């Protein structure tokens, strides 16, 4: 379990993390989402004690990271897959990490097998592809068989097979009862992976809820309808507090009302519907909506040609 309480970090005048409080529970994958520059990496660095909080505190299993009895047996982290000495072989890299916490050599061989790096374990990691480096980083995180695992943007730059592998691994780690905390700036990556989401923007907490709730809340609710009588439907929908957009191919998108409500309105007002379906707003869309105000470097609208 990871608990942040009023966590804050400033670099000079720049606020990277601002009064952040959240709890990451065991037994599920918790996605840590936010646009680039939202403060995700800084938060993870503070969890590991690499950066000192300006205010507040963060604990892992009830203690600050540096005070854990055996850090590797409690927390495994992959912040940056390239944060290894490229001149050292994968095996020696893992061995030197294991030795700090008196983890036996047999476990080093074991994690190399788990991530499938047997063939290159004796090679210098300088020549590793990003995917291989990610596997090496994950092997390092697993060395101590920890309860808490933390991954910063683990699928960045991976091929689809690598992404799928990491996704399955995270799910299986959570199923084993571990705390899995994984950051991403892409909502789509979380869609099939996370059970719970913590969303931040400009260092502030925006949402902390189960992934299902994220799309079901009011702002994201939408219904797709087709009707020959656009004008009247628009009238009754607006009167009932909904909003209506013209979609593709004669479709209309109603926001702010459920499919049941739209159907009832149409029946009551005698409007013929050809089609009625709840539009599952994608997580991506919901995420964009939530973080729109907090994107640090917002792209200018209008593309220069």
């Amino acid at each position, binding site marked *: 379990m990871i608990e942040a309480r009023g966590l804050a970090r400033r670099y000079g005048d720049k606020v990277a993390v601002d009064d952040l409080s959240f709890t990451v529970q065991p037994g599920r994958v918790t996605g840590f989402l936010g646009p680039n520059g939202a403060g995700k990496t800084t938060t993870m*660095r503070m969890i*590991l*004690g*690499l*950066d*000192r909080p300006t205010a507040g505190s963060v604990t892992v299993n009830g203690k600050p*990271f*540096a005070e*854990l*009895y*055996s*850090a*590797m*047996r409690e*927390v495994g*982290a992959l*912040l*940056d897959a*390239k*944060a*290894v*000495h*490229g*001149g*050292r*072989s994968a095996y*020696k*890299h893992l*061995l*030197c*990490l*294991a*030795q*700090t*916490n*008196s*983890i*036996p050599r*047999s*476990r080093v061989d*074991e994690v190399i*097998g*788990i*991530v*499938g790096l047997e063939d290159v374990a004796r090679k210098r990691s300088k020549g590793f592809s990003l995917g291989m480096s990610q596997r090496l980083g994950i092997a*390092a995180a*697993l*060395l*101590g*068989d920890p309860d808490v695992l933390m991954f910063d943007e683990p699928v960045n730059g991976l091929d689809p*097979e690598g992404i*799928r*592998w990491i996704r*399955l*691994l995270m799910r*299986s*780690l959570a199923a*084993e009862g571990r705390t899995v905390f994984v950051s991403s700036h892409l909502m789509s990556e979380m869609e099939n992976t996370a059970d719970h989401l913590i969303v931040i923007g400009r260092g502030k907490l925006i949402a902390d809820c189960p992934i299902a709730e994220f799309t079901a809340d009011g702002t994201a609710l939408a219904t797709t309808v087709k009707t020959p009588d656009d004008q009247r439907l628009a009238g009754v929908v607006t009167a009932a507090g909904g909003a209506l957009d013209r979609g593709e191919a004669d479709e209309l998108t109603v926001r702010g009302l459920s499919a049941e409500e739209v159907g009832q309105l149409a029946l009551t007002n005698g409007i013929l519907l050809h089609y009625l379906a709840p539009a599952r707003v994608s997580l991506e869309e919901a995420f964009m909506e939530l973080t729109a105000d907090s994107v640090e470097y917002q792209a200018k609208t209008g593309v220069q040609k």
Partner: protein
Amino acid sequence: MTTASIPVTPARIRAVPAAAKRPGLPGTLRSELTKILSVRSTYWTLLAQAVAAIAWAAIACAGTVSHGIGPGFNAAQVSLTGQVALGELIIVVLGALVITSEYSTGMIRTSLGVMPRRSVLYSAKAMVFAAVTFTVSLVTSFTAFFVGQAILSSKHYNTTLGAPGVLRAVLLSAAIVTVFGLLAYGTGAIIRHSAGAITSILGVIFLIPALAQALPNSWFADVVRWLPGGQALMPIASSARSVSNHLFSAWGEFAVFSGYAAVLLAIGAWLFIRRDA
């Protein structure tokens, strides 16, 4: 349906044994030994140091044999000057790299992620580097001495380990290299940048004694014993009781440089523990 070529296996096959004690210095020393012995820069720098020290001993002693000895000749000093003066310049590269490479590669974040007790990591790294350097320097120091004496023996200029002050000169010549290495380690921890750290140390070692030459003679005579590199190293390589009355004794000069190293190591430690990694 696609099948991933790497199957997802459970992350635990056999349980990892619990820690008998809180992880600390012993494990971190083993880890740092694995680290220093698993990168090529260690072997290159130590080999360069050995070759330079031994080759210099051979050249200087052969020169002495062909040109004859002058006043102030000291058989130990001729064979050990290369070890002290060249070894010092080469070892600072390794001393700095041992710590700056952690920053340049990003490895420091991984290292502190497994051993968050920073004072343990900092001291283990320094101790392992010092032990490896001192071991290799002892071998090169003795080898340079014996090679040099073998060459000097053709004119019977040679001395033996049993003669007064000779064993001290051989041992201190190995130790001073280690001291300069630790000085570089401290500087590396302060600057955290390989090229920056190495350049500043070499700059200080080369420039300060050179600039000091511009001082009036009497001033120079007063400060030379405190200057890193150059003449102040000579009493360390010599078996004589006193090399010059402007310089301290062998132990005195050794203490001066050890003092510099201690100050830099302490500042480095303070910053290593306090700063964001």
